[in-house]
């Protein structure tokens, strides 16, 4: 450990070390992203794909009108998220976000349980006029209307 680096090439050695570390970091990041990124689904994709229960996913869609049911424990709710083509039952324990309501958009983070229910760890609802969950921001007003109409038939 006590030796001096080959004096002529110290700069090259430093560059090589830095590049090696950065490439390692990049490869590691790429590998981890494949396994750990959580994909966004709308209900019809979720029904078609059926991601495995240990895969973290985000589910976005409209809360169907009349679907919100409160459990007797007072903190768990069940509701149905639809996109006009398919619908998925969702279970969530916790304090629902401020603007969560029937007929409006929601993004649920969690995983699809084996019984076909989506177990949500967090709910993101439309927060205010300026903040919309990323995935809901893209839905145009017309799409939202269509989704709501579709889910209330």
């Amino acid at each position, binding site marked *: 450990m006590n030796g001096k680096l080959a004096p002529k090439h110290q700069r090259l050695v430093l560059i090589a070390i*830095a590049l090696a570390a950065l490439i390692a*970091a990049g490869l590691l990041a790429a590998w*981890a992203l494949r396994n750990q*990124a959580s994909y*966004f689904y709308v209900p019809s994709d979720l029904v078609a794909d059926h991601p495995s229960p240990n895969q973290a996913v985000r589910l976005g869609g409209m809360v169907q009108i009349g679907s919100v049911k409160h459990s007797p424990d007072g*903190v768990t709710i069940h509701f149905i998220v639809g996109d006009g083509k398919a619908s998925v039952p969702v279970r969530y*324990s916790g*304090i629902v976000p401020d603007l969560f309501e029937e007929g409006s958009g929601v993004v649920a*983070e969690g995983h699809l349980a084996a019984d076909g229910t989506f177990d949500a760890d*967090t709910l993101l609802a439309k927060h205010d006029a300026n903040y919309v969950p990323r995935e809901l921001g893209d839905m145009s007003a017309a799409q939202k209307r269509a989704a709501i109409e579709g889910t209330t038939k």
Partner: protein
Amino acid sequence: MIANFGLAALWLAGALAALQLLAGAFALRGDEPTLARLVRPAAVVQGVLAALSFGALLLLFARTDLSVRLVVENSSSMKPMIFKIAGAWGNHEGSMLLWVTIMSLAGALIALLERRLPEPTMLATLAAQAFVGLGFYAFLLFSSNPFERVANPPPDGYGLNPLLQDIGLAFHPPTLYLGYVGLSVAFSFAVGALVTREVTPDFARAMRPWVLGAWIFLTLGITAGSYWAYYELGWGGWWFWDPVENASLMPWLAATALLHSASVLAARDALRAWTIMLGVIAFSMSMIGTFLVRSGILTSVHAFAVDPERGTFILALLAVYIGGALTLFALRAGTVTEGERFAVTSREAALVVNNVALTSILAIVLVGTLYPLVTEAFGVKVSVGPPYFNPVTAIFFFPMLAVLAIGPLLRWRRDSLGRVRGEVLLVALVAVAALAGARFAGSTRLLPLLGLALAVAVAVAAFLPLRGRSLRRLPLHVWGMVLAHFGIAVSLFGVSVDSAFTKERLIAAQVGETMHVGPWAVTLASVEPVAGPNWTAMEGTLSVSFDGGSPSEMTPQSRNFWEPVQHTSESALLTRWNGQLYAVIGEEAENGGWQLRLWWKPFVTFIWFGGLLIGLGGLLALLGRLSLDLKRRHVRARGAERRAEQAQ
């Protein structure tokens, strides 16, 4: 009137930046040496004008001048004064004006005070600073005019998002901007040094206070932002790896690396090109941060495509600055001669590990932050969160901490581990003991366990550089280093304990019911409606007692604002020396109870105390360096006087 004045001052400041750039560039080429005399005064006047312009905006907000669009959209006459003023920079245009103001004031300070560097390097530095500033002036004047008027002033403004009506917000963005701007100064110094190929210890010494200052503000900004998210969002979390948070973390990581490599350059004249590169990276990260936050790209790539003007502008600035700097670097780095060499076991080598690890962590955070944007452009939506960031950054962070424990004990140039055998053994033993203790206390997950072990080891190791030295004669900057390293340990301790030992309880409680969370007994005493200046709320009164001790009271609220209409949860916190009890109240449940979410978070406050210690360490280092610089300047001036006398 005030708006016109502010706009005029802004135009003039922009014009002076152009003058500063051109005069500097021509003087450097040697065409017009007299132009060199214009550069420093231009920088000073530019700073004053930008400050006047920002002052005008503050005044408009303080008076709620409804003829200005920005005021209409972001303020209202009913807000408390402090939030009216904070509203001036709580929006896109105002915050960009604040940025450019701080930046030109920094330029003015350099022009007034910096005398160490050779004059050509100074000219190049100030010209680079003007070049960066010019882009922001153009951005403000052509696409984000803060002084734009409305034709028909409405009776009142639209207010400010109540989530943002918080004292933390009033000071959070300016703090981060001071950090970003400090890095822009470091960048200008780096460009200046590259242009004249004067990459010397003096360059590192001139740049270091700015990096230190930027780093202190970023540290405090991140710490404050994290605490704000923790108590305001009501989720009990303190860091979400949200892109906006990452936007402030990435410049911090780069600044931390730059700080350490600049120290090597200043003390030992090694790592020359390396330090320049880090200067470019650090500023790039603050530009990327600004781009992420200000372009609207985070909401959606498509939202960005719908209203691309601002985002494209910042992206273009980013490309010009970073592309230009990297090109210059590629052209000149080869001609910067290599600095002093060092052995594998030396303080320099330990700092290289710090630099490489921090840069790798930076790359990992950057990739994770940009990945969702890239995939979305290809039609696949993903989000990247803690399951990616925590373990992958830890792979580099933990080994870096192990080196941090030993590095400060090593000598410059060449050393042997055998010389510090005792200290290494002590730190290793402490780490193993802490690991065993945490395991015994019931922590089973790998990351918190390792985190705890390293936190305790680094906490001890941080003070080892003091051994055998006279504490009274120790330079201030060494105290700074010790404190900052200790702060890292304290923060990591808080993070690890919080993640290993937090207790959570979610319940619909009847009034009068008692529940338990960790060592706490919590009784819901009552729920009453209360009202504030622009909100009404349901307020729960909780009677809580720690481990059978005397009861205290907590009052979480569920608030409804009416202007603009919005609902927020006001969490209640009870702080003890060994942690915090965190309570949130939700809705009335169907069985007549109230939803309560309770967390007992042991030692969670250490996270932010650690952040404060790191910032304080930075401050001591800055003061220590500045006072040394002043002494040196004094000695030099006296020497010059004496020489002048002898010559007579």
